[in-house]
């Protein structure tokens, strides 16, 4: 197991390097000068521009910039934003907010999705199943920014049950509505995955055996159906944490949440490469770590899978 984890982490190194290089290339290859753009119409003295370009390593060739960024990143220095704040500090502030939001969304979609999916799978073709299926299709088909906007309008503005925008105060209660919006599409996927696999497992041989040996229906479902049915769901949920953090760009925009989605979007528009690349690197790391955890969870859920 140790060697398996070590090998997986080694394999992740080229992925992280490659994706930062890719993003760096896309941010860097834009024409125009982000420093001059900062000064707007009136322009700035050449000496100041030169000094700033030097400070942000913008006068170096592209590959050197990337290597300088990596060199800094290893010791925790992610560079500075154009407004002079260390990027590491900005991410340090924004990251916990997005993690909280994404975790709340994940819990919401996992708990409700698995419960609703299991009940629907056990009663395939009945009223509850059909209504859940229709709900999930509607949730998937309506874009998240429309869904989020409507919930904000109804529950935030008209009914005033939740704050319409979060602003600086990212408490559990304030993030509840955004988390439901963020997790809604994945909730539909979790529901559909669980439903299909529960329904399939209900007619599996081992479940028939469990029934034949006289287990109660509750025990059959909990011990023999659910555990097997959860394997695809767990895979999905693990891969989803990264997707939720990326999806936060839209949700955080709608509800004005000071998370990394908002941070990276502003940085992209400004062409602030250190911030963009740092945030993307963080997201790639989240993806790498969660997919490793998922693979380890696999082995726990399905003892037939062994890693050497």
């Amino acid at each position, binding site marked *: 197991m140790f060697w398996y984890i070590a090998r997986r982490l080694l394999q992740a190194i080229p992925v992280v390097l490659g994706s930062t290089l890719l993003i760096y290339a896309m941010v860097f290859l834009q024409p125009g000068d982000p420093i001059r753009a900062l000064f707007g119409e009136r322009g700035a003295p050449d000496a100041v521009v030169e000094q700033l370009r030097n400070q942000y390593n913008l006068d170096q060739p592209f590959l050197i910039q990337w290597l300088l960024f990596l060199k800094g990143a290893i010791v925790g220095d992610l560079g500075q934003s154009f407004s002079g704040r260390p990027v590491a500090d900005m991410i340090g502030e924004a990251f916990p907010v997005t993690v909280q939001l994404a975790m709340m969304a994940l819990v919401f979609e996992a708990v409700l999705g698995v419960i609703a999916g299991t009940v629907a799978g056990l009663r395939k073709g009945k009223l509850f199943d059909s209504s859940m299926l229709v709900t999930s299709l509607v949730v998937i*088909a309506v874009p998240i920014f*429309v869904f989020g906007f409507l919930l904000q309008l109804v529950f935030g503005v008209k009914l005033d049950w939740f704050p319409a925008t979060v602003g600086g105060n990212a408490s559990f209660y304030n993030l509840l509505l955004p988390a439901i919006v963020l997790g809604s599409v994945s909730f539909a996927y979790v529901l559909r995955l669980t439903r299909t696999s529960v329904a399939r497992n209900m007619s599996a041989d081992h479940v028939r055996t469990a029934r034949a040996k006289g287990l109660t229906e509750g025990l059959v479902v909990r011990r023999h159906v659910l555990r097997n049915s959860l394997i695809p769901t767990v895979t999905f949920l693990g891969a989803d944490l990264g997707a939720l953090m990326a*999806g936060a760009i839209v949700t955080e925009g709608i509800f004005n949440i000071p998370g990394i989605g908002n941070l990276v*979007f502003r940085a992209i528009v400004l062409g602030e490469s250190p911030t963009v690349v740092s945030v993307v690197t963080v*997201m790639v790391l989240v993806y790498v770590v969660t997919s490793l955890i998922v693979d380890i969870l696999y082995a726990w859920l399905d003892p037939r899978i062994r890693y050497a």
Partner: protein
Amino acid sequence: MPDRSDRPHLPGQERFVAPLEETRLAAVDSLDLEEAPESQWRETWKLLRRSPLFIVSMILLAGVVVIVIAPGLFTNSDPRLCVTGRSLDGPSSGHPFGFDRQGCDVWSRTLYGARASVAVGVLTTALVALVGGFTGAVAGYAEGWVDSLLSRISDIFFAIPLVLAAIVMLSAINNIWPDREFWGGVTVVVLALALFGWPQVMRIMRGSVLEVKNLEFVDAARAIGASSMTNLARHVVPNALAPVIVTATVSLGIFIVAEATLSFLGLGLPPTVISWGNDISNAQSQVRAGTDLRVLFVPSTFLALTVLTFILLGDAIRDALDPKARER
């Protein structure tokens, strides 16, 4: 074999033999061994024709196609003719959903907006299926260092979240090429989505090829001397395509949503192009300012119905292709 039927047995051990008609043996007996079995595709098509899900999604798809080809059939008003004098006018004859704040016909804009959204979905899916399918087939069939190299490259693109990567790329292109028209705008969005969308298809194709290539009929083809290219193209790929087709159908809908999301963020199609994403984005700021919900409702509903069409179609095809699901 001794006949066991007259052997004495203990009480409670009486054997029960089902009548032949109740078992599936009769169906097996009636098979004609001389007749060639039906091809997988013909069998799938037979199942699809009978599936209500497939029929519903085909009707919806026909509607989408007609609107994309000839939006003028359903409206006489010009989507670009926006008159401020008509701003926020309610529904009237010929304008079933009235006008938005700029005085544009909501219904007409929604119908004409289908083109851009569907074009992005179809072209992105085609590109992703082509690139992902090809690399996946090569990686799965070749194995060894070719597989490792292609897989690591796809990992790099897969690790960056799709919408985030597309935002970065599109904001870069916006600076290089700011005033794009319809096809320029569509091409750029398609390239951005496809560049980071192909690894998913590649992974599915690779897994499917790995499974198929060890089956007996592939060995048989190799044994009678088929070259490895012939083998891959004639025997492995056609039998490995099923999961890719299902994924591609569903992802067509997902790409349409992604385009709308990018346009919503102001980075997708240029604002001069009529598209659902742009219209929804405009409608939201209008609704915030107090306009009636119908300006948001019409384009959102059409977008959702189109996405729904492809999800249902994907479901129908998967059910038809999956022999396990058939039995129930």
